[in-house]
């Protein structure tokens, strides 16, 4: 386990080592995003080690793994949120619909509109519920009239399953909602700019079980409309919401495949140890 962290100078060797090459294909469905040999460095420290993975439109993809395994770091590469960390450096190839998202001509602002993100802690803007949702469409000019904007707000809230709870108080502050409602508001906010992919970084870790169940239900409903990638440290959650699961360990992708296979019949010993609770 430790040799992976130590030998930071040769990322090639991992992908070449026979036992460390996981199946990267997601199987059926049209490809949405692909990554090839992605390395992430924080200064001198290598956080991600030659990860190659495919994300499809029709499946919810879950990233699981013990704390510090790099699953969140990798997720943040998919919409270039790591750009905000000055010492982070990403190499390798990540594509969205065949376009290299780290290419010089890629507009990162547009990319983030196409690949939306929901964060660990609900982070609504300290503005009204309406303005929270309407902010994205406004800055991207997605609505030409007030009616159109109202429509986007309503549709987004409905898709996030929040409309019935907040339709009478759209002008209340978004921060006045409960934790679970705030997180669904954040999902609605991401949906409002009509993304192709939604990245969720442990979206339920700050929520109680009932709110978590609602979010999971929501993920089920959103499946197919958006490509969804979810990072979770809760294996049951991964089993419940996802169709594809990737297991990360110490910055490498250990195994990737159909969720039921990963949980019932993992091919790698490390995966088996983790899902049976030996470590993590």
């Amino acid at each position: 386990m430790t040799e992976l962290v130590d030998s930071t100078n040769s990322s090639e060797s991992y992908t070449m080592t026979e036992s460390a090459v996981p199946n990267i294909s997601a199987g059926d469905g049209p490809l949405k995003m692909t990554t090839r040999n992605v390395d992430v460095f924080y200064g001198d420290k290598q956080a991600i080690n030659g990860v190659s993975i495919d994300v499809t439109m029709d499946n919810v993809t879950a990233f699981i793994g013990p704390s510090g395994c790099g699953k969140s770091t990798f997720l943040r590469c998919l919409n270039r949120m790591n750009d905000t960390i000055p010492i982070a450096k990403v190499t390798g190839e990540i594509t969205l619909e065949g376009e290299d998202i780290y290419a010089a001509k890629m507009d990162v602002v547009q990319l983030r509109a196409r690949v939306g993100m929901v964060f660990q802690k609900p982070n609504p803007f300290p503005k009204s519920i309406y303005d929270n949702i309407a902010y994205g469409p406004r800055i991207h000019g997605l609505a030409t009239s007030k009616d159109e904007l109202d429509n986007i707000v309503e549709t987004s809230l409905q898709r996030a399953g929040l409309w019935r709870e907040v339709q009478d108080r759209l002008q209340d502050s978004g921060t006045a909602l409960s934790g679970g409602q705030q997180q669904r508001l954040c999902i609605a906010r991401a949906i409002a700019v009509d993304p192709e992919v939604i990245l969720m970084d442990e979206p339920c870790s700050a929520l109680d079980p009932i709110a978590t169940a609602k979010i999971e239900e929501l993920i089920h409903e959103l499946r197919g409309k958006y490509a969804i990638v979810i990072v979770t440290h809760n294996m049951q959650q991964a089993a419940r919401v996802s169709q594809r699961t990737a297991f990360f360990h110490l910055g490498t992708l250990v195994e990737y495949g159909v969720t039921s296979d990963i949980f019932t019949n993992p091919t790698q010993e490390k995966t088996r140890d983790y899902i049976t609770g030996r470590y993590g």
Partner: protein
Amino acid sequence: MNSAVAFAEERNPTDWQSDAMQKRIRKRYASERRFKALGLGAIVLSAGFLAFLLIVMVGNGLRGFTQTELPVEIDFPAMTGGASPSQFVGANGSANLRSLGVQDIVSTSVQIQYGEQGTELFSAGSWQTVQAAILDNPGIVESRTTLYLPVGSEIDVAYKGDGNASAEKTVEELKDQLSTGFNSNFLFNSDATDPMQVGIWGALKGSLITMFITLIIAFPIGVFSALYLEEYAPKNRFTDLIEVSINNLAAVPSIIFGLLGLAVFLNLFGLPRSAALVGGLTLALMTMPVIVISGRNAIKAVPPSIREAALGIGASQMQVVFHHVLPLALPGILTGTIIGMARALGETAPLLMIGMRAFIATPPGGIVEPATVLPVQIFLWSDEVNRGFVEKTSAAIIVLLLFLLTMNALAIYLRNRFETRW
């Protein structure tokens, strides 16, 4: 494992009732009481100093807002040769009044009433009170009218109980006629050589203009510097150096900024001396680092999750800054700005260097006209020999403190009004 077992065997239950334990508890209570008493003592001491300052200032200063007056009966119809009230109304009113020779009328009336030496009782500018009274109400020129005119500064001081022997004697003689009135001159006049005629308005206006210049220069530069340093600038040795420099700049003694203003604005750029513009620029240099530091702190306090949220739905860096970070940081920035401005308002030393200590008898009409400011005016008056200036100095201090108090109240109001909780 073994050591844990051994420990369990050796362990005796703690005796919370033992003498040593009780003593420790008493000691703890005593030290808490001591600490509380010390803290309370410190508060009482500082409150005492503050109360002393305010009582002395208000006690002395309030007398500056009053003046001692003597009644003078003026026979307007006889003296003016039958001037009609309509002459002193409208556009030509003050010109006609000037040609009337009010000064002579007043001194004649005074001599009739108080004898040959009568004029010495009165303030040299007391005729201006008569002039103002006529402009205010032209009808008085039709009849014999009694007006209350300000007495000379020595008698004024003596009447208020602090004068020299001869003035005391005069006061004793005129006791029945002397009275105290509100000194409106003090609020509407500018500097003068006669303490009965001085006013704070020129300095107050100078302060307002100077503060305005300071604000419009220092606020945008300070806020944009803070935003750039926090949100855009890479974190490296160079920006570290800039940060240290800004912190040092905030601690530089103000007189150094005065020298800088003298060397750069007056000598290099050739801007006029004593002008509010130069004063404002100099104080802006001094205030800017304070705004940058408080601005950076306020910007740092905006939670990163808000930035991520905005970035995550595709806001550009500038949209993040102007739609989210700046509005949330604004209360903190405003508080810091007003504290910096309050410091600039009380600043004297740098303004002395750029010539704002001149005797300015008219309120400044613009940013390049000679002006003075409140603290410099206080400094100048406190230097005067004439005893009449003592209470004027205190009164000016009251005005300055009220100004400061208003600014600080505004800072607190703005902070509470715009503070967002998340």
